[in-house]
């Protein structure tokens, strides 16, 4: 079994997406979902700064890794266990801007939690998105369990779970990778390494260069990829998915990326990040990079760009308007669903 860490470099050329088996339409769908994730996120910050909603946590800067990996999966058939930044993943899996805004405003209709959880705590049984709480890294074990069930029923569904490089320090990350390796489970462990866990830089989080190096210690491949190159992320994910469907077991994918916002609306990243560093990474924005590629490839013509921008803006506007008007849960909702089956006398 290959266990060496491969440095996957983005190959140039105007035909990258086609050589990866992606049609122009698929390439554009990926672009539109990245744009939508970004637009919803930006709108949330705006509303938060106006004091109309208490909390935002962002995907900005990580949409390439999220959509690149998600695009290699089959929504509805495969499963994802995302973390709070994965707007790009859940939008690809069928959530809508409206769903996002309903949870942002904590409305009763919020499909993730009925207004109970903070924004970013995704979950939908129907969409095969495993519910996430706030404690980091627990979802890696859930993903292993979902994959175990698929294996027990001899189904070829793949489960992808996403987490930050900080979460990789938790014991659960170790236990999940070890278990998935032992049973050769169809799991993609996707680490979105943005260099910080709130204020803690990678150098205080681990003594290694690449989280992907850990995979060898479990007995499966670890791959490092440029997380700001959506097509490179798609490529390594497609390889890992194929391997998983063949029953050859998990892959650890480390997408090197950056968080373009503070950790959340409660954070002040100026305390721990240099303005230069933030500025440098702005130039590596995965959306801008993808735009450059799509234009070069002749896929993103002006009218297409314009149509996408209009659709995105319209969805965000409608979603915001709808969600802000939508009703709150009522007081008597408080006691519901402690159990699925209430047996108290």
């Amino acid at each position: 079994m290959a266990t060496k860490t491969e440095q996957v470099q983005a190959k140039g050329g105007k035909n990258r997406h086609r050589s990866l088996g992606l049609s122009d339409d698929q390439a554009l769908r990926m672009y539109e979902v990245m744009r939508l994730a970004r637009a919803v996120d930006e709108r949330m910050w705006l509303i938060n700064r106006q004091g109309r909603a208490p909390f935002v946590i962002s995907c900005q800067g990580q949409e390439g890794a999220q959509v690149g990996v998600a695009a290699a999966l089959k929504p509805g058939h495969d499963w994802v266990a995302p973390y709070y930044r994965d707007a790009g993943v859940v939008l690809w899996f069928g959530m809508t801007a409206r769903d996002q805004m309903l949870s942002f405003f904590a409305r009763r209709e919020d499909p993730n939690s009925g207004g109970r959880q903070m924004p970013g705590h995704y979950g939908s049984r129907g969409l095969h998105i495993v519910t996430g709480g706030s404690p980091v890294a627990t979802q890696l074990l859930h993903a292993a369990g979902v994959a175990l069930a698929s294996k027990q029923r001899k189904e070829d569904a793949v489960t992808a779970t996403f987490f930050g490089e900080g979460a990789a320090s938790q014991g659960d990350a170790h236990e999940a990778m070890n278990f998935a390796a032992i049973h050769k489970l169809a799991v993609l462990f996707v680490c979105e390494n943005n260099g910080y866990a709130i204020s803690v830089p990678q150098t205080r989080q681990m003594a290694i260069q690449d989280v992907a190096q850990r995979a060898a210690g479990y007995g499966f491949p670890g791959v490092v990829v440029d997380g700001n190159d959506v097509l490179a992320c798609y490529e390594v994910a497609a390889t890992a998915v194929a391997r998983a469907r063949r029953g050859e077991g998990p892959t650890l994918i480390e997408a090197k990326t950056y968080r373009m916002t503070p950790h959340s609306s409660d954070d002040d990243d100026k305390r721990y990040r240099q303005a230069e560093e933030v500025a440098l990474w702005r130039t590596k924005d995965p959306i801008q990079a993808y735009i450059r590629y799509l234009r070069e490839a002749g896929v993103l013509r002006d009218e297409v760009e314009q149509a996408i921008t209009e659709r995105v803006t319209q969805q965000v506007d409608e979603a915001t308007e709808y969600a802000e008007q939508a009703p709150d849960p009522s007081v008597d909702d408080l006691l519901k669903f402690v159990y699925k089956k209430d047996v108290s006398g």
Partner: protein
Amino acid sequence: MASKTIIEAIRGAMDEEMERDPSVFIIGEDVGIRGGVFLATDGLYKKYGEDRVIDSPLAESCIVGVAIGAAVNGMRPIAEIQFADFIAPAMNQIIEEAARFCYRTAGDFNLPMVIRAPWGGGVHGALYHSQSIEATFGHIPGLKVVIPSTPADARGLLKAAVRDPDPVLYLEHKRTYRLVRGEVPEGDGVVPIGKAEVKREGTDLSLIAYGLMLTHCLDVAAKLAKEGISAEVLDLRTIKPMDEAAVIATARKTGKVLVVHEDNRFAGIAAEVMAIIMENAFDALDAPVMRLTAPDVPAMPFNHTLEEAFMPNVEKILAKARELARL
């Protein structure tokens, strides 16, 4: 009606449920070829194979976390924690994840899963093979916590737990595994979660207990009868959600209540029972409700003298019950 020990009843219940429903499987340490350290799963590996009786790595958070994921994806896992004393590494997965899945998704997700764990003392298990954990988990909303004290309840409650759509912590008092034998009914024999049972009727005072202490309380009641004291014995069976109506009924009936457990005293289950009675039967009390529990020291020592001193037993319960009867 067949006569079985508690361990036989538990093994049989798992076997029956695995036969009935292919989505039921077992995961835990040494549950496979070893049959579990108490032989609770003996024979099941041979019968159902390694895909349905899974020897996990030595990692409790893994056992529970994987069970959660499998339950999300259509399975009904029975996760075994080798000793209740070793459940703490899994507390984050149990308390923050399993217990909150249904609530945090407003019912979109639910987890049909059972966590089995041998608990309790009196077996020279020392600090780490004797612990009681029912108060710790009983306090957590979203979990169901059951403790059988007879073979029939052990079988019936385990079946109910496997079929329940919510996470159930199923606690097995290891001292009772082979000590307690009793009739087990033919047929399904499911025992409902959430219902206590009066195991012996009485009029002068009530003994409320579960686990090994329930067995002791029945002995005590028999001895008290010879002294002309009529003691009612209530088996809680389900710790959470507790059958408040049954607790209130026996308190109102006898007016004198002694709650017994081997868990630590402070903020234990006895305290909650006392609070329930305070709130609902204060006017009916002929004496303050009493509790007999382990002291607030970290589980029972290995040395037999200290273990004896730690555990409530028939003598200690009898003395306390006589004291209550005299009031």
